[in-house]
């Protein structure tokens, strides 16, 4: 059971948490035992279950610490299954959580939610997808960050040089549609499953194209946006995420292109000559071999395609990855909190 701290009132509690560094710089909701208990009750856990470990920090994350940090982030109990699944995903060894949360490279943890849970808890997949105004998105992303930085002691180690605002909170839902295979289905789940996918991400890059009238024109502009030299993606074997807005998706689907074809087209065209890269003095990871062309990702499947964003406007988004697949890969976990954790 976590230490109980006696204070005079909620405002004093918020100031105490600022003083202790238990915040992202914004006020937090004081985690009272009653609120924490409600979080745990929602997922049928006692608080003692071990959700995972961060070996480099000798950190053990319990369900109680997840619940406390979720309360602080402003989550409702109904969000707890998503937070728990996301925490389990980032604590999967293949995610390599220590690196992206402390690296000078300043990655955020992007949380992508799929499945019926989106409607059940009111996650936003539309207008202002990565912006403001949606409690579920903002507080779930913030809770994951809190767990890693406060319960997981990451704030002691974070050496980020620049970073980006997604480090405060970065959670989106996919705008799922019958005529487009959603991310979690492509990664082996059923449409009826709810999942989270976590991805160590650099800052998002908006893709502006109001004029393309066919998929080739449109996706060539995507490819151009995806291939600046100064990213991990162009120097190492790194995954990336592309969020396709509804207007762009309409252009793609008008010509019958499916998701696999879009991924293949981007893989074929989001590349630059190796000689150009070396001309600028950028080192090319030896893992890339002696290929003449440097491609944005090691395979079409490593370009994670997601539909989302508001119905008006032709603005999609390219989200580069952090480091390489040797250090961190996207992890998808089912949202099924009732059977999670080890005691």
């Amino acid at each position, binding site marked *: 059971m976590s230490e109980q701290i006696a*204070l005079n009132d909620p405002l004093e509690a918020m100031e105490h948490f600022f003083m202790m560094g238990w915040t992202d710089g914004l006020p937090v909701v004081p985690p009272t*035992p009653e609120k924490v208990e409600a979080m745990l009750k929602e997922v049928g856990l006692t608080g003692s279950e071990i959700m995972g470990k961060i070996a480099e920090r000798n*950190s053990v994350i319990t369900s109680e610490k997840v619940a406390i940090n979720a309360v602080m982030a402003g989550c409702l109990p109904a969000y707890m299954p998503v937070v728990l699944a996301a925490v389990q995903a980032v604590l999967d060894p293949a995610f390599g959580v220590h690196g992206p949360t402390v690296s000078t490279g300043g990655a955020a943890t992007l949380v992508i939610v799929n499945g019926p849970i989106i409607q059940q808890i009111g996650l936003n997949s539309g207008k202002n997808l990565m912006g403001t105004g949606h409690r579920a998105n903002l507080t779930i992303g913030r809770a994951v960050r809190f767990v890693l930085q406060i319960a*997981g002691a990451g704030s002691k180690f974070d050496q980020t040089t620049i970073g980006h605002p997604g480090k405060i909170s970065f959670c989106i839902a996919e705008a799922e549609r019958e005529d487009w295979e959603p991310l979690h289905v492509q990664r082996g789940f059923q449409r009826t499953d709810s999942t989270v996918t976590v991805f160590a991400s650099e800052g998002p890059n908006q893709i502006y194209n109001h004029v393309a009238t066919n998929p080739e024109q449109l996706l060539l502009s995507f490819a151009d946006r995806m291939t600046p030299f100064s990213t991990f993606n162009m120097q190492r074997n790194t995954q990336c995420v592309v969020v396709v807005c509804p207007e762009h998706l309409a252009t793609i689907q008008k010509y019958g292109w499916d998701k696999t074809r879009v991924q293949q087209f981007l893989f074929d065209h989001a590349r630059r000559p190796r000689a150009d890269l070396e001309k600028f003095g950028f080192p090319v990871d030896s893992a890339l071999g002696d290929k003449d062309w440097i491609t944005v990702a090691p395979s079409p499947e490593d370009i994670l395609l997601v539909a989302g964003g508001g119905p008006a406007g032709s603005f999609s988004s390219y989200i580069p990855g952090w480091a390489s697949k040797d250090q961190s890969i996207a992890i998808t976990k089912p949202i099924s909190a009732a059977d999670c954790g080890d005691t």
Partner: protein
Amino acid sequence: MAGPFIVLNPAQESTVSSEKTANRLTTLDDKVLAVVNNGKRNSDVILQTLLAQLQQSYKLKDVIWIDKKNASLPVTDVMLEQLQSCHAVIAGVGD
């Protein structure tokens, strides 16, 4: 005024650990020294330089050089086993 307002500590709290600091060495003479290269660019250069200086100052019994696959992940269990046979370990970051 009601009673105190109780909140819970969100951070990792200190736990009793069976781990303890290794005994400090007074000399590296006749000792086995391990060097862990974490794989950052030029970390091998720095560590090789440091090792060469130590070898000038001490008669090391043996040197075990370990290359991590990448800097971001923990050392493997196999590497940890190798380190257990050493008297001292140097680990460095070459950023």
